[in-house]
């Protein structure tokens, strides 16, 4: 029987395939989720120049403990949780400093300089606000909004309850709204 192409397998099947020795499965898992992890890190306040290293370190950490991934939580959400922990460690080492570079940022193209400036300002404010949220609020909010994860999946990933996840999301939204008014 022919070996299935990694691209046709689910995350759980890829994880099993990698653990059985298929390195292509690891490459597929990284390819599938690297951008999402990078966006998550960027949104939580990581500096643009650090995104590549932080993303790589997140995957290295994840694969070192791949056997601890509970298949009931989405692999991407699990990765984001590891990314969040890694970023927290980085902040701790930097003694709590949160540095968000103000140049060369990811912003939509636009011809109107005033509009572009305003968009940059809004994104800066929003990233700072997200970075300053309590950790669970931040992670619930980003898993919900960037990954489209349901509360049940978020609760499993972050080891909390569905009700608590809803409350964290509600509080996060309430605080973040103020940053973009």
């Amino acid at each position, binding site marked *: 029987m022919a070996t299935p192409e990694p691209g046709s397998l689910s995350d759980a099947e890829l994880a099993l395939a990698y653990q059985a020795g298929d390195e292509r499965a690891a*490459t597929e898992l990284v390819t599938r989720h*690297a*951008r999402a992890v990078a966006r998550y890190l960027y*949104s939580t306040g990581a500096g643009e120049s650090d995104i590549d290293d932080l993303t*790589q370190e997140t995957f*290295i950490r994840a694969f070192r403990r791949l056997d601890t991934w509970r298949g009931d939580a989405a692999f991407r959400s699990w990765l984001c949780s590891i990314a969040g922990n890694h970023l927290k*460690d980085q902040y701790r080492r930097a003694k709590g400093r949160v540095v968000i570079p103000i140049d060369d940022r990811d912003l939509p193209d636009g011809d109107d300089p005033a509009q572009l400036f305003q968009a940059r300002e809004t994104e800066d404010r929003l990233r700072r606000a997200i970075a300053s949220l309590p950790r669970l609020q931040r992670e619930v909010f980003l898993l919900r*909004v960037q990954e*489209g994860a349901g509360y049940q999946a978020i609760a499993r990933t972050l080891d909390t309850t569905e009700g608590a996840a809803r409350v964290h999301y509600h509080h996060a939204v309430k605080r973040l709204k103020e940053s973009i008014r």
Partner: protein
Amino acid sequence: MTGTVCDTLRDRMPDIALGRAEWSDDEARHLESCAECVTEWRLVSLTATMGAAVADRVDPARIAEAVLEDRRAGTPVVSIRRRAAWAAGVVAVAAALLLVFGGLLGPAPESPTTADAGWLGPELDDLETTELILVLDQLETTSMDVLYQPGASSVDELETGELEDVLQAWEG
């Protein structure tokens, strides 16, 4: 519109921002008239697309290769900075334990002062809990053999307060 309509609409925002669903006509009309929902929709849609260009610059093939190299090696990749932190940590713990156990065993001539060890302290902030435990374990099996004498305490016998004293001693 009632609060329930707002709640339903807000619950659907992530899926719509990610292109997995669309607004119904009623929902679209509601969005034109509810300022709170408009603000939340702006927040959700901004966040849903945030960082897309940054993510495009990430190279998954290179990351995958780094992951595989790490796994083939089977040992954690430790940065130079981290190794330095480890080394500083080991030295600092040794110095602190000399202070504590030296004191327990009697006055030691010319023993190092807290200020002497203090410069190393902040490096220990960089260590994970598990790494600190490893440092202590290592000292138990190596340096402590030199220090230990009959009747003296071991690290395992220290109370929490005494361990905190050890930490404070090297943090100055």
